[in-house]
Every structure is written in structure tokens, then in C-alpha cells.
């Protein structure tokens, strides 16, 4: 799976302060760390960028391009900042992150993907919010992708985002997103996909977030999911994605297939993955203590 490093995010206090002060060092440190950790893309999340959107986006892109050759994912809902960010990408073809089925997004974001010939993330969000189930996700994405196609953006340039909600907030939605991922390539041949993986574990105690993220990534990967915006500084996640931990992948797949998998012969670590699969598939009710359940 293509991993898009998520660490340069305006919600992070260090990043927010560095952007405000135009202090390159903390941003470049994160860019280098994620590049070395094995990221394939770097996400630059600048939030709504209300103040000086053009100048901020340009500064951020240039700052990161000074230390890495990786392609960038320009992540903002502000179309002005988006355009400036895309324009500043000189090293590799960027990813516009993101457009959606919202009216303003169709009108202001999607044309930018065409204008700058970028790849583009299109989420299933609509003017009515996040679709609640697989069918409404399908309905939303078919509509938005058709709109993008008409603008001249081919399926191959589109990365569909099913929108992942925290398992601690709405366990059912985690399953809905997975089911959607399963059928995506059948309903839209040639389409790519991505997901905000860490949102899954938002609200879960910090030390337990990794295994949720890693397990779900592996489950998605089984269905040919293309990429994830993820914490690449989690070494086990990168190793798992690279194929260095085949026995873990195998145990996750078996847990997906067999509800009553016999865990007596499994290692402590493997059991944790089995329990996590069971929680993510909604077989057991989530609690922060799911590994001890």
C-alpha cells in the first residue's frame, strides 16, 4: 500500500507554531523523519489556512521540497491555499487532498485537479455529511466520480476516500467503510483509493492506537486498497505494509475468515491482532480494554 505520511499536520502544536513563525526546522525534521521511515508521499495539512493562504501554502511546500524528493499531498479545504500549494510543487506530481461530493468542492476543488493535472482524493462526503452505509457511500461516489470524469479527470487519477470514523465513537461505521472498500474496484474499474487511517483510533488511549491502525490497514490491503494517510513513524506499520511480517498478515486474514479461530496456539502478539480484527469487524462490542476482553 502507498503510505502517505501524516505528521505534518496543522493540529500538531509544533507544526502550527512553526508555520506561524515561518520556522523551517521543525517542518523539515518531520519531512526527513517520515522520508527515512519509508513514506511514499508526505501529506501537508494546513487546515483552513485563513490567514495568507497563498503565501502559507507556497512556503510550506517549498520548505518541504528543500529536504525531500517525495511527492506531496496538499491537504486543505481552502481552494486558494490549494491552488498555491499545487503550483509550488515542482519535484513530483502532487495529490490534491481532498475534494468531495459537496457542492463547493465540486465547483472549486475538482477543477483544480484538472487544471494542474494532479491526482485527486475524492471523499464520499456530500452536502448532507457522511453517508451512513455502504449503499449511500456508493451512491455518493458514483455521482462525484461521474462529475470528475466529465471534467476530464480519469478514474486512474482519482483516489476515493470512504471516510473512516473512530471505532470508539461509531463501531458500525468502521465496518461500513471496510465493506465499501471491498466493492470499490468492482463499481469503479481503475480507481485508486486512500483513507485517513489514524482517525480510526482517535479517542483510543495513545499506547493502543497503533494496533488498531495496523490491523485495519492490513484488512483493507486484503481487498486491494491502494493507499493510506498514516503514521509512518510507527515502524511496525511500515514493516507490516512492506511485507516483513507475513505471519501477522496471515493471522489477520485467518481471523477475518474464521469467527471462532482457535487462538490457543498463537503467540501473545498474534492474539492481540485476532482480538483487534474481531472488534473492527463488530463481532464484539468495542471498549478501550478490547485486548483484555
Amino acid at each position, binding site marked *: 500500500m502507498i503510505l502517505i505520511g501524516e505528521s505534518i499536520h496543522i493540529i500538531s502544536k509544533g507544526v502550527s507554531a512553526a508555520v506561524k513563525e515561518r520556522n523551517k526546522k521543525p517542518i523539515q525534521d518531520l519531512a526527513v523523519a517520515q522520508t527515512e521511515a519509508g513514506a511514499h508521499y508526505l501529506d501537508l495539512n494546513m487546515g483552513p489556512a485563513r490567514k495568507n493562504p497563498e503565501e502559507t501554502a507556497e512556503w510550506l511546500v517549498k520548505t518541504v521540497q528543500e529536504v525531500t524528493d517525495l511527492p506531496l499531498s496538499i491537504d486543505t479545504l481552502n481552494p486558494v491555499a490549494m491552488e498555491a500549494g499545487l503550483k509550488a510543487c515542482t519535484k513530483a506530481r502532487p495529490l490534491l487532498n481532498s475534494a468531495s461530493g459537496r457542492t463547493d468542492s465540486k465547483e472549486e476543488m475538482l477543477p483544480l485537479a484538472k487544471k494542474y493535472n494532479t491526482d485527486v482524493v475524492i471523499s464520499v462526503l456530500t452536502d448532507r455529511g457522511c453517508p451512513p452505509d455502504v449503499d449511500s457511500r456508493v451512491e455518493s461516489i458514483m455521482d462525484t466520480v461521474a462529475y470528475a470524469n466529465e471534467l476530464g479527470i480519469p478514474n486512474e487519477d482519482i483516489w476515493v476516500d470512504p471516510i473512516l470514523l473512530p471505532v*470508539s465513537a461509531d*463501531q458500525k461505521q468502521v465496518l461500513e467503510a471496510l465493506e465499501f472498500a471491498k466493492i470499490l474496484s468492482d463499481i469503479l474499474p481503475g480507481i485508486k483509493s486512500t483513507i485517513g487511517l489514524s482517525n480510526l483510533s482517535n479517542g483510543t488511549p495513545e499506547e493502543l492506537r497503533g494496533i488498531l491502525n495496523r490491523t485495519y490497514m492490513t484488512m483493507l490491503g486484503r481487498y486491494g486498497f491502494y493507499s493510506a494517510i498514516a503514521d509512518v513513524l510507527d515502524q511496525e506499520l511500515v514493516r507490516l505494509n512492506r511485507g516483513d511480517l507475513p505471519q501477522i498478515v496471515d493471522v489477520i486474514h485467518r481471523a477475518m475468515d474464521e469467527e471462532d479461530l482457535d487462538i490457543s496456539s498463537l503467540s501473545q502478539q498474534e492474539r492481540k491482532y485476532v482480538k483487534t480484527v474481531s472488534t473492527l469487524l463488530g463481532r*464484539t*462490542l*468495542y*471498549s*478501550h*480494554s478490547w485486548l*483484555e*476482553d
Partner: protein
Amino acid sequence: MDYKAPVESYSGSVREVTIGQGSKAVKIGGESKLAYNFFDEGSIPNPPRFALEVRDTEPDNWAPWVLEPYKDVVSDPVKWAQKCVEYGAEMVCLRLASTDPVGKDASPKEAAEAVKKVADAVSVPLIVYGSGDDKKDAEVLPEVAATCSGQNLLLGPALKENYEVIAKAAQEHGHTVIAQTPLDINLMKELNIKLSKTFPPERVVIDPLSSGLGYGMEYSFTIMERTKHTGVMFKDAMTQMPIIADLAEECWKTKEAKASKEQGILWESMTALSLLLAGANIVVLRHPETLGLVREILKQE
């Protein structure tokens, strides 16, 4: 073609929990199907139980029509509790309002002695709720547990902040514990898992918080219903505890219940009936006429 109604049978069941000791002992829970699903397979060995509420201090803002049935006894928790039993309560729910640190801030010892007097004086099991202040309850409830050792009170609320000390005391002195979480099924399960590491799950009752009709009751309903679904239908051991619906205060503090007697009793009755349908195993009421009305309706089941 004849219509044949589908009959469901489930593989899980709610734990049967005993409250009270000896001749006072009452069993709750134990059901292996959903509440009032009389058409399905499985059994409901114990009907829901009704408690009436007593305070250890005189209430100051109750509507006159809910104070009226108790007007001669509100200054004496023992007599008040006995009155509740006369009115037909199967349990008494004693609320230690006096221990609230922002109120009278009574000492744990005072409170515990008052509990003991009530427990000894009534012929039914006793539910004891602390003030809800997690720090103060961590002092009060263990003292109550020790003073009433062996009486198998239903003690709470044990919260995520103080469950360890309350469970330890309940364990040592043979009581049952109310595990309370704020209207969130995931946090509810979380507390049950933590509690069950050191405390027998057969002695836990869930309080998911009960909101009054019109003030979020549907949240309580959903959580109770889902708790039963995961426990009875999906055999989740950590949601198979019986449920207490502590709804009286939430109903009687509404402006609707304070507007007229009839409306107040209907407010409390409708909330109680709804939460019974969701699967509540103990219902805490305040007005004896509510108790009569709800029982009357259930008889016509």
C-alpha cells in the same frame, strides 16, 4: 398459506444477581431472551423489581404531590423506608444526599450508621447510592460496606475514578456493586472489564444513567437495549449484567412533573415503562402511585 410467526432463540443470558441476605434476598436478571419478547424461546426467571426512593436528608425542592405520600416521615429515613415497603416497594433505594461535599458534607461514619439503621429496619433489600462525588463516595461507600458487613447491599455508584476502592470493600464485606458510566455503551463495557479483573461479575449491576422522558430518555433506552442485545444475542460476557434504571430524580426534576401531580406520575410511569421495555431489571421510582400504575399496566401484558 398459513402464516407462521418466526421464533428466535438466543445463546446468551443475563447473569442472575442476588441482592440482600437470607429472607430478604431477591434475585434479578437471569433472562435468556429480550424483555417482553414472550413469543421467543428462552426464559425470564425473575420479573423486574421496583424500588422506591428514600433520602437521608429532607428533600428541599420536591413538588408537593411527590412529597405528600411521605410528609410524615421525610425527616426519618428509617420510617421513610418502612413507608416505602408499606407502599409495596420490593427494594428500598437510599440516597446518601447528606454526604454531598457541596451540601451538608456528612461524614462517612454518620452516613454508614444511618444506612445500617435503615438496612436493619426493613424487610426488603437495600440499594445505596452515594452522592456521586467520586472522591467522597470512595470514603463513604467503603465505610457503609464495612458497617453493614454481610448484608449484601447494592452499593454504588462505582465510577471509573473510584471503582477499585469500592469494589474492594464490597468484596470484603459481601455486597453487590452498581457500575455507572455516563450514557456510553463502550465506556460501560470498559468499566465492567476493569471491575471484573478483581471483582466477581455475578455481583455487578449496570447503571448506564437514566434520563427522563423528553430529556434524552432515548439515549438511555438505546444503551439498555444494545446492552441486552450484545449480552443475550451475541454472548458478550462483559455486558451480561442486569441493569438498574435510576430514573426518579430525572423525571421529578422536569418542569412537566413539577407542573401537576397527574403529569408528574405519568412522566415517571412512561419513563419507567419505556426503560422496562428496553430491558431494565430494577427500576427506582419515587411516587407510590407510579408504582401502582406501572404494575397495573404490566399485569395486562
